[in-house]
């Protein structure tokens, strides 16, 4: 592989990183909202959140990508930037998974913490922000970091419907012109591994450390 081609792969890897980071930020915010709605005292809100999660988790990301890419047609937009559509689809998908992860963590904070906070005279919002969230965040950190690996891998699907220039898209372009699949896809796999492996190691380390602190 000549340096130019490797450069092209690296550009793709950069596209992957940008898309992953954008998704992580937006999906994090939306996911928190989903998790909070899932444990809301209002029944309709809980139901809506659970319907959202079920319907997102029951469909492939590929389909979601298609909806987000062609959906803006409804609003009269004839074409949307690929990055926008890809971020939108990944954000919607990841937020459902984040919502479930975080709901579990919020609910795993011991019940008497709620009661104790209530006795102290804190309002619902204060209880959530000052007592529950900080404790839940500690439990939620390892799976959240682990899920970042999932997001990075999921970005590869943007190459299929949307044609956003990320790593697997660029690898495919190179392969289409030269037919050396082992070389290009092997290199792409190595680059994905370089991005993902530190994250999954980090997640495992955090898990061990926080478990020790917990017991």
């Amino acid at each position, binding site marked *: 592989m000549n340096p130019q081609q490797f450069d092209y792969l690296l550009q793709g890897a950069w596209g992957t990183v940008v898309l992953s980071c954008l998704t992580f930020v937006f999906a994090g915010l939306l996911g928190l909202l989903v998790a909070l709605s899932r444990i809301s005292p209002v029944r309709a809100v809980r139901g809506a959140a659970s319907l959202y999660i079920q319907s997102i988790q029951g469909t492939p990301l590929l389909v979601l990508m298609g909806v987000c890419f062609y959906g803006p047609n409804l609003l009269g937009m004839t074409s949307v930037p690929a990055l926008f559509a890809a971020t939108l689809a990944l954000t919607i998908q990841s937020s459902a998974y984040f919502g479930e992860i975080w709901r579990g963590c919020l609910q795993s904070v011991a019940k008497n913490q709620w009661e104790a906070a209530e006795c102290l005279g804190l309002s619902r919002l204060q209880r959530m922000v000052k007592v529950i969230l900080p404790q839940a965040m500690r439990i939620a950190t390892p799976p959240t970091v682990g899920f970042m690996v999932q997001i990075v891998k999921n970005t590869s699907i943007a190459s299929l419907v949307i044609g956003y220039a990320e790593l697997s898209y660029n*690898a495919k372009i190179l392969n289409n012109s030269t037919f050396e*699949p082992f070389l290009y896809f092997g290199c792409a796999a190595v680059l994905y591994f370089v991005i993902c492996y530190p994250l999954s190691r980090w997640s495992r380390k955090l898990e061990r450390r926080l478990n020790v602190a917990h017991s």
Partner: protein
Amino acid sequence: MSYEFDFQSVLAYWPMFLSGAWTTLQMSFWATLVGFVLGVLCAVARTGGPLWLRKVVGAYVEVIRNTPLLIQSYFLIFGMSNIGIRMPIMAGAILALVINIGAYTCEIVRAGIESIHKGQLEAAECLGLSPAQVYWHIILRPAVERVYPALTSQYVLLMLVTSILSAVGANELFGVSNQVQANTFRNFEVFIVLWVVYLALSVLVRAVFWLVAQCVFVRRRKLGTSL
């Protein structure tokens, strides 16, 4: 709102959607079956095998879990055909899925095996069970039962990611829908239909897993109490 929905022309292709859904289910079934066996074997090797085998299986698991399925299937299917090994598309697609799901199953089942309490092993030994009996009755089956919910979610995800293999030419639900899109130019409607069909399929897969659990685990428990 300038867009006008036209589901009629899309739904006219329902036999194609149906055959695609059937292919998706078939692919998922074989990948689940073979992948489960592979994953359990890997988990056994990774917890009880010799050191070199643990390292090899560990490397396999890490590589698969940290690279996207899309790249894996490109590598496998395009790569194989490039060095002259040509297999039917379905076989290649299922092979890619099996290799992928094997790694995830291995990790999940390993967690189950490691969660078995040591006292149970000692108790089983005291009862005079042979090592093979201990492994089967005390370690493996309870481990799988314990991680069964996680396995279910993973296999529902497996059914959903078969859609990616349309990129290497598999004619499953998503691959078929590409043809419908090309015929009707109704991309958005096609995706809405796909959404609904995949939702139905994932409900179906969950139900099947629930039924299997009812048969395998519950009956065993009843037998256990009556003995």
